[in-house]
């Protein structure tokens, strides 16, 4: 049997970067093949060339043993290549059926298409109502649309781009079942991810990319997560170093019955959230995206003010009525999820961005005038201590890569030595090396007695980092438990179990 897909010497160059450098690997029929690498390793560029979105500058793609030129996504689908994107290419205002019809090249009458959709859904256990509007569906359900759309074409190779980043553990299991069933029927799967335990659980072969080059092709079941991670980043992975004999201090941040108002149709407010974080404690809040994390961060940072002063206290001092600036003065700093536009202004220099959040705590404004020398010095210190790759304090924030900007933002807040730090998705889209540095910085900050709240969808991160865990679901927070005493199943159930089966998102209180 010929190889399903064979890439030989694929090279792709962008202005100033070599995105793929002479990459060669093959996928066998029925194989689940992982494509592994950090952000910027060239995974996306590579699959875009396989799917015909881009053309390689050099090299050859062979399909079932025959050299081919994949000139467009349409041509790819004609060959039998399907793709499920990380960011869904869905149309929110249209129905499931209309969305799927748009992705079909053949013109099938709506009624026949619906029958085929129902058949594929039944065959793979992907339940969905074809007439629902996409805007009303959960993320897991939206992903099912993409999968159904790809499966309708009876693909021989299915490309999955980071499919699990938005799913609960149970949804991940369901997805893996579908993928294993597909593979058993002879469909090859190219699975892009940086979650190593998933790759170990699912994949037969792993191809690892680093800096656009192929580093290794290996059997993930024979490797440890650590060995694969080290191949990915090309260096030894640093463990988080925890200081010896750490003990928690007095309760520092006390949140009691904190609620926010519902602001828009798709926002989930928080409802009577209570928790306590002690000095030196890292408190993790897990949950699937869109369950009130944004409202919680805004309510803690002061962007949304409470009408009850006592709903948030630091060392007993009530903060509920204060705005962001006042809360910062009292020692509560926050880092929102969205880096560009919320945590930092892309069109401002790093120095100016420092002034925005550190001006009061570090005395950068005197008599209404900005002390730009102090801002520059402080920014230089952040750049040096957090190894931010930037030309200097005058660099525009928007010119930094996502990971570097995140390092800068985290550094900007951490070096202010806040007594409470609230961060959302601290390492989202950040490569493993930078993530490890950010984690270490958080642990170090906790070690000097700060209380830290980490809101994240990445369970691995929370498991590695936090002392205590709670789960946010539909705006409500589960009781907190020590991290070590919580099982992954328990967290998964608290996260709302399997989406779709319970229509969880429709049950949001109005």
């Amino acid at each position, binding site marked *: 049997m010929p190889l399903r897909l064979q890439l030989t010497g694929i090279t792709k160059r962008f202005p100033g970067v070599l995105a793929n450098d002479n990459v060669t690997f093959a996928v066998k029929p029925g194989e689940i093949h992982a494509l592994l690498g950090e952000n910027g390793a060239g995974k996306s560029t590579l699959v875009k060339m396989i799917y015909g979105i881009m053309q390689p500058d050099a090299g050859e793609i062979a399909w079932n043993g025959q050299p081919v030129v994949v000139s467009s*996504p349409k041509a790819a689908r004609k060959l039998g290549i399907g793709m499920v994107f990380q960011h869904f290419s*869905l149309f929110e205002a249209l129905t499931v059926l209309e969305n799927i019809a*748009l992705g079909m090249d053949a013109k099938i009458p709506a009624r026949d298409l619906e029958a085929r959709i129902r058949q594929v859904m039944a065959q793979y256990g992907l339940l969905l109502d074809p007439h629902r509007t996409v805007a009303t569906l959960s993320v897991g359900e939206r992903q099912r649309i993409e999968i159904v759309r790809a499966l309708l074409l009876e693909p021989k190779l299915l490309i999955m781009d980071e499919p699990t980043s938005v799913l609960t553990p149970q949804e991940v299991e369901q997805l893996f079942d579908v993928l294993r069933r597909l593979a058993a029927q002879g469909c090859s799967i190219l699975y892009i991810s940086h979650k190593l335990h998933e790759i170990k659980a699912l994949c037969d072969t792993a191809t690892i990319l680093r800096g656009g080059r192929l580093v290794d092709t290996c059997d993930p079941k024979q490797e440890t997560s650590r060995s694969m991670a080290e191949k990915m980043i090309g260096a030894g992975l640093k463990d988080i170093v925890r200081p010896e004999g750490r003990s928690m201090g007095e309760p520092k941040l006390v949140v009691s019955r904190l609620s926010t108002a519902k602001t828009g149709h798709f926002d989930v407010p928080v409802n009577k959230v209570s928790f306590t974080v002690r000095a030196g404690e890292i408190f993790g809040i897990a949950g699937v995206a869109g369950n009130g994390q944004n409202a919680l961060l805004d309510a803690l940072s002061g962007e949304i003010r409470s009408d009850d002063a006592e709903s948030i206290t630091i060392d007993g001092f009530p903060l509920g009525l204060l705005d962001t600036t006042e809360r910062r003065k009292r020692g509560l700093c926050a880092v929102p999820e969205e880096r560009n536009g919320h945590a930092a202004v892309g069109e401002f220099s790093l120095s100016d961005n420092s002034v925005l959040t550190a001006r009061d705590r570090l005395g950068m404004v005197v008599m209404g005038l900005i002390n730009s020398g102090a801002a520059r010095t402080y920014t230089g210190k952040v750049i040096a201590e957090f190894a931010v790759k930037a030309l200097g304090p005058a660099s525009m924030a928007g010119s930094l890569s996502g990971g570097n900007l995140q390092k800068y933002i985290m550094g900007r807040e951490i070096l202010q030595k806040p007594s409470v730090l609230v961060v959302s998705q601290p390492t989202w889209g950040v490569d493993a090396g930078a993530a490890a540095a950010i984690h270490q910085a958080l642990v170090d900050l906790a070690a000097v007695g700060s209380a830290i709240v980490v809101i994240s969808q990445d369970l691995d991160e929370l498991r590695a980092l936090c002392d205590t865990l709670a789960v946010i679901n539909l705006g409500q927070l589960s009781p907190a438990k020590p991290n070590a005493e919580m099982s992954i199943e328990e967290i998964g159930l608290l996260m709302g179990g399997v989406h779709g089966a319970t229509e969880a998102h429709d049950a949001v209180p109005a």
Partner: protein
Amino acid sequence: MNLDLLIAIFITVVGASTPILIAATGELVVEKSGVLNLGVEGMMLVGAITAFLVVFLTGQHYLAIVLAAGAGIATSMIFGFLTLSLSANQTATGLALTIFGTGFSALAGQGYSARPVTLLGPLFPADLATHPVLRIVFGYSALVYFALIMVVAVWWFLKKTRAGLILRAVGENDLSAHSIGYSVIGVRYAAVAFGGAMAGIAGACFPLLLTPQWAERMTAGRGWIAVALVVFASWRPFRLLAGAYLFGLVMTMELYAKAGGGPLSAIPSELWAALPYLATVVVLVLISIRRDASTNAPACLGRPFLPSN
């Protein structure tokens, strides 16, 4: 009020509504594809002067309509090239197009002011068209029926055809449509051209249907009402129909109020003239209070399409 007057008012309303309805139907398709073309007024004026000149020189009314559509397309392609191929700001370009259309039509129409042409006659035989009651149905020129047919056709196209689905998809999420493999720019060019043709025909209504002569700025802001009407109708063709006749009614009321006499003049004609805009503002406020998906606005409206690669 007697029956004859009511029928007369009704027929005047239908006539006054027709150019707005035609232009708004075109603009609805343009906006559904995600493009905001504020140059409707300018394209209408180019259509109006083209139609006037053709009728003045040849006397061919239907040729005038076709060439007005062509002139509308040509004008819209200026907008299309700037905003779609060069990613210029759509709002600014649309405004510029209106200024251009106003100036260009005034230039082309120099020396033709107040020269009379003949109106486009009714489509149906004179017996039907002059019958006191039947003329409510049969008494109009082809342009009126064209407007009604286009509303149904556009509804059917957007709702029932695959091409219409693609057009809505492009307006809803251009990047996704691009990644699936549809030509976002191509679809938008086609939509803008359709909008241009419709605006050109709407402009032709002025010399052919309403006042048989050329006057500078003779469209008198109806293009702007058409743009407002699309929002007023929340991008739904049949609401557009209702809205166009409602606006037409209010505009006719303005004329009667101006003419003086009767109960209508109790309200100043300026207030009648302002009513369509006030109504649009009220509707916009109501829509934005609801602030959910049911507003039906195309999500990419007015945003230039910039694929990342």
